């Protein structure tokens, strides 16, 4: 029994069931969504164990229904990403159960979250460009609707901005896909990886520019990220967590790196362009974050900056850099959604969104205060929390490949991140209690539960580097990228 199609079928079925049960009471919607996501997390773990023990996994629907040309592929990178995003989305849904009491239509909310999950899982296991495009559109169109979900004036505006910029980026990617098909006569990853002979003319440059701009918009790199602060601020807090923890990782970084490493082969010139964009994101994102007073907007700018770290590590091309980039990707999927949940729990209990309206909240909300403190230390790269280890790996990798300037900028970005989160702790959680906040209490039990799960992960994710654990999680993912265009030959062998 092949597990890969279940990763798409289960969330789609869950989404349809939630929508059919729209007239039922809200607890039913919670239950269906929660069970669906737990099942997905379990399947993701099973996929990863299968990949670790048997190597790459391929599902060919053509063997069941003749004539279907598309295939589903899972390797170490896919398994790692599947576990990460399904776990994060599960935590966000646990938080949402109480958070979305403020909205009337919980069925629609869960439907959109499950559709996004289906789209992201589809992107991760797709084995050809067009399937990737279709699932990417399923994920991002659900994301546009989720941005507008609160129906406030600013969320409508942010959703329009996100939808227009995202739509343009999707069309740029589609253009690139059309040119790749014109050159190679195929849409499958493995056939393109074998057939692409890197023609030294303008077509390669054109395709690369289209792909980097297209996926750069989706992965929130700096010159293309004007929509990010608006969309992350206007979306409900758990949804912002999903955007930064899952959507931008999968449709942006994963897709770009899969194409640049495994389909076209590592190219030092193209990767140095990507590296410069990443460095710009690190420093500009964190500088803009320093000026922000809106908590979620500040987190959005930090998201841009942290994405820069991941892409910087991945763009180096060395095993150490890839390991650092991927580990930072997983770590960021833990602490950034946690910080968005902190912002959401403050918003839920006291309706405060800017840091100036907060103050002394740690007295009234001890769990939110403690979890946000640990998340702030993690994102600033303070040992022994998870962010420290991955940033250390990225900086070592920069030095190892002789890019001292990049290493210095990475350290400077980390210091500025610490400064910015000192401000958050000072104004939101420490100091005298704000008069308006005298009567507020702690967030509800389920909200605390999801924050505590993510905090435990924050503290313990450093174990990913221990021998024994490294071989199970990071090492297969790093190997999946370093094999480069051999990926195509490996799939070809499995299909025969």
């Amino acid at each position, binding site marked *: 029994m092949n597990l890969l199609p279940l990763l798409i079928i289960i969330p789609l079925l869950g989404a349809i069931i939630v929508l059919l049960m729209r007239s039922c009471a809200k607890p039913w919607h919670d239950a269906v969504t929660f069970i669906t996501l737990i099942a997905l997390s379990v399947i993701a773990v099973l996929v990863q164990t299968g990949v670790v023990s048997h190597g790459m996994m391929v599902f060919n629907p053509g063997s069941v229904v003749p004539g279907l040309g598309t295939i589903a592929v899972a390797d170490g990178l896919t398994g790692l990403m599947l576990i990460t995003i399904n776990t994060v989305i599960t935590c966000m849904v646990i938080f949402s159960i109480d958070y979305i009491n403020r909205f009337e239509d919980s069925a629609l909310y869960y439907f959109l979250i499950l559709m996004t999950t289906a789209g992201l899982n589809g992107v991760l296991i797709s084995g050809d460009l*067009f399937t990737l495009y279709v699932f990417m559109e399923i994920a991002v169109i659900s994301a546009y609707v989720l941005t507008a979900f609160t129906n406030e004036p600013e969320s409508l505006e942010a959703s329009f901005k996100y939808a227009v910029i995202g739509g343009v980026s999707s069309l740029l990617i589609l253009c690139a896909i059309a040119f790749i098909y014109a050159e190679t006569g195929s849409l499958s990853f493995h056939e393109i990886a074998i057939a692409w002979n890197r023609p030294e003319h303008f077509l390669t440059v054109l395709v690369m520019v289209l792909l980097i701009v297209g996926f750069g918009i989706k992965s929130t790199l700096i010159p293309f990220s004007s929509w990010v602060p608006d969309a992350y601020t206007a979306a409900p807090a758990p949804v912002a967590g999903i955007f930064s923890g899952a959507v931008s990782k999968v449709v942006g970084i994963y897709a770009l790196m899969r194409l640049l490493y495994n389909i076209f082969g590592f190219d030092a010139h193209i990767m140095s362009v990507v590296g410069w964009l990443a460095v710009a994101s690190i420093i500009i994102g964190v500088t803009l974050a320093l000026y922000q007073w809106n908590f979620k907007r500040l987190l959005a700018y930090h998201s841009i900056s942290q994405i820069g770290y991941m892409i910087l590590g991945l763009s180096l091309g060395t095993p150490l850099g890839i390991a650092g980039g991927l580990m930072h990707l997983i770590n960021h999927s833990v602490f950034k959604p946690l910080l968005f949940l902190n912002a959401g729990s403050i918003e839920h209990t006291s309706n405060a969104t800017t840091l100036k309206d907060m103050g002394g909240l740690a007295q009234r909300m001890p769990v939110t205060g403690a979890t946000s403190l640990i998340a702030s230390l993690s994102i600033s790269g303070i040992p022994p929390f998870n962010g420290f280890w991955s940033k250390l790996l990225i900086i070592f990798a920069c030095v190892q490949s002789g890019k001292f300037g990049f290493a210095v900028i990475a350290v400077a970005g980390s210091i500025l991140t610490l400064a910015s989160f000192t401000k958050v702790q000072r104004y939101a959680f420490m100091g005298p209690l704000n008069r308006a906040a005298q009567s507020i209490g702690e967030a509800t039990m389920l909200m605390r539960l999801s924050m505590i799960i993510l905090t435990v992960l924050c503290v313990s994710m450093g174990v990913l580097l221990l021998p024994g654990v490294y071989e199970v999680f990071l090492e297969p993912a790093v190997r999946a990228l370093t094999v480069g265009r051999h990926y195509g030959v490996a799939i070809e062998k499995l299909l025969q």
Partner: protein
Amino acid sequence: MAFILAIILFSIGLYAVIVKRNIVKIIIGIAVMGYAVNLLMIMIGYRADGTIPLASYGAGMVTVDPLMQAVVLTTIVIGLSMTVFLVALALRLYATYNTIDVAEIRELNG
């Protein structure tokens, strides 16, 4: 030649999205860009003197590429859903702000 046509069409759409301040014109611009990409893909699938890609119709004859036509059908559906969402959003925006000028819709900044 047809490629140049697709690129011109794409540029017109991109121009509308970037320069125009009217929400409806921006949505039309996105749609025009979508049509440009569809046209490009149909042109990539075109074969000189090709017939329709049906095995029963022209066995052994040169046919146009059916894959690109299937892809274009799917992207038309995706483009439709995108346009419908944007138009619904534009209606809500008009009801909220009472304007269709994006320069006047500026709750968010910074």
